[in-house]
């Protein structure tokens, strides 16, 4: 079974979709000749040529808007927005245009476009190159939002995103690019909108994505030694949200912890608590706990950044607290 890094999985998915459909074109800043600043796309320019793999000027608003124009006229563009912190630069095109184009035209267009972007902290990039972007986007109907946390998902979900006839934002975690994992030959195209139970357990449900999901798995390993069996769910897609997998799990465990690499306010973690309150309240045996960044920002200095992002220890402590709450 082939083992790929998360980075190689991204590249393979893009290459496979470009081979499968000549309407797929790819562009962004330094993605072609240089192969991307995170080296996610080397060799694509050489394989597919300058007509299909293009370096753009540093003009996020223009090339994200151009992706929309290309999508509604018959192409299937993939645009890379280098750092997710640059998403707000193109926010008008994403929120007012891309998300709404089909709706406000009364369904005259399909909008098959994918925006890839690297997000997340832990690698010392400071406040403007580390943020997670999903919560800025979730408030806008009309976007699908995908956050792969493993190489197999980075591969299959990106292929799924490119096949979608709707706009999809794929947020890759830059701290995971070197992560290795099995990507079976027959992985193919994964369906968006499905969560995955990464570890079975019967005492506490922990929900997270990307780096936080991996830290939750580490916490689960520690707690298993104490006799606490933790179920870890990777949401993988935040829009559409797979609510049934979460509800099914808390029905079993009666306890919920939500872990996010994001500020506390207005986030999908709050939405999950709302889901538990609306549809899962009678399953719950204990208060729900959220572990997140509170009001903290991504600092440059390592000790500060480490404090800001939920650590394995903080996650472990929160799960333990919920596990024993009466």
């Amino acid at each position, binding site marked *: 079974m082939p083992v790929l890094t998360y980075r190689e999985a991204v590249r393979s998915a893009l290459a496979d979709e470009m081979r499968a459909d000549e309407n797929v074109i790819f562009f962004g800043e330094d993605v072609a000749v240089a192969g991307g600043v995170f080296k996610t796309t080397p060799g694509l320019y050489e394989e597919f040529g300058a007509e299909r793999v293009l370096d753009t000027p540093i003009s996020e608003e223009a090339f994200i808007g151009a992706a929309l*124009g290309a999508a509604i006229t018959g192409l299937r563009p993939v645009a890379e927005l280098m750092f997710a912190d640059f998403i707000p630069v193109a926010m008008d095109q994403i929120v007012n245009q891309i998300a709404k184009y089909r709706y406000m035209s009364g369904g005259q267009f399909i909008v098959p476009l994918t925006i890839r972007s690297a997000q997340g902290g832990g690698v010392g990039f400071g406040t403007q190159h580390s943020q997670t972007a999903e919560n800025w986007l979730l408030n806008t109907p009309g976007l699908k939002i995908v956050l792969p946390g493993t190489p197999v998902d980075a591969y299959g979900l990106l292929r799924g995103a490119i096949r979608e006839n709707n706009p999809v934002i794929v947020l890759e975690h830059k701290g995971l690019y070197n992560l290795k994992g099995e990507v079976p030959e027959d992985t193919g195209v994964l369906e968006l909108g499905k969560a995955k139970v990464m570890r079975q357990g019967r005492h506490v449900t922990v929900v997270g994505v990307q780096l936080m999901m991996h830290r939750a798995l580490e916490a689960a390993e520690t707690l298993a030694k104490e006799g606490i069996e933790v179920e870890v769910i990777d949401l993988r897609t935040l829009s559409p949200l797979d609510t049934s997998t979460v509800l099914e799990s808390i029905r079993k465990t009666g306890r919920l912890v939500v872990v996010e690499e994001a500020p506390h306010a207005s986030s999908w973690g709050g939405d999950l608590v709302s889901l538990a309150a609306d549809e899962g309240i009678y399953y719950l045996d204990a208060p729900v706990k959220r572990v997140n960044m509170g009001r903290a920002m991504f600092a440059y200095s390592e000790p500060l950044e480490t404090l800001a992002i939920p650590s394995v220890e903080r996650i472990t402590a929160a799960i333990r607290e919920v596990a024993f709450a009466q």
Partner: protein
Amino acid sequence: MVTINIPTPTVEVKPLDADARMNALRKMLEIRLTEEKLQEMFLANLIRGTTHLCIGQEAVSTGVASALRKGDTVTCTYRGHGHALAMGMTVKAMIAEMMGRASGCCRGKGGSMHMTDASIGLLGANAIVGAQLPIAVGAAMTAKYKKTGAISVTFFGDAATNIGAFHESLNLASVWKLPVIFVCENNRYGEYSPQHWTTPVEDLSVRAVSYNMPGITVDGQDVETVHAEFKAAAERARAGEGPTFLEMKTYRYMGHSRTDTGPYRPAGELDAWKQRDPILLLKTKMIADGQIDEVEFGELRDATERYIAEVVEWAKREPYPTEADLLTDIFYEG
């Protein structure tokens, strides 16, 4: 005394043939009279929200549309009724949309600022200043990649030339040599502010220089001049020579939106521009060439007015969208 400088054409402006002139006259009248009716409907509370009228600017949309081919695409502004009708949207589809009916061009989901008809290449009017320019750049990417020979046109106002999306789009279209025609309708006002308060240059076409593309200032009141200058730009674009920026000098007779009466205009300015009304200019040429007379013009005007009034009565009887439409068209299902 307000004087209007008339830009000198950069190409030979030949008279359109008699049929083309008649089509342009009909189209400009249709736009003018539809918008006059829309204003009346607003005052009668038949239409909600707001509207932005292009009365006085009809030669720009009409002259450009008359030089388009099937497959060409357009993005435009919230002052977009003229662009839509000029491209061939029906008065019915527009008025039903304005009245929020399910038979409107966007099934009632768009309204005045979002006139869209993909079947005629109208990729959409836009309510965000400048946002339609990058979208047009993308449509041109498709045309270039698929070698369709189509061109992509985007209309925008003078004030949009101060927004980032304008500069980014001209730059991108130029470095990629894309078949885009940037058509600026310089009606001298950005919302309520005259151009010289907000913009340090008089002829906006100079802004094309830094993007290494032709920038041409055009008499936007003369439909034949608009047609000729646009056609030359379109031919360059179709030949792979890249984008052109056309600045159409024109004038907005009405305020920015329906509540604006335009108190900021200098005395005499509106009257001076009305001497160069686009419908009047074409009609005068056609009378001089024996292609129409005042009586025939009056009949055409009355017939157009009657038709628009009939459309309004029809639209009043059309159904609204229902709850079943609330959550459709957010995503393509399938």
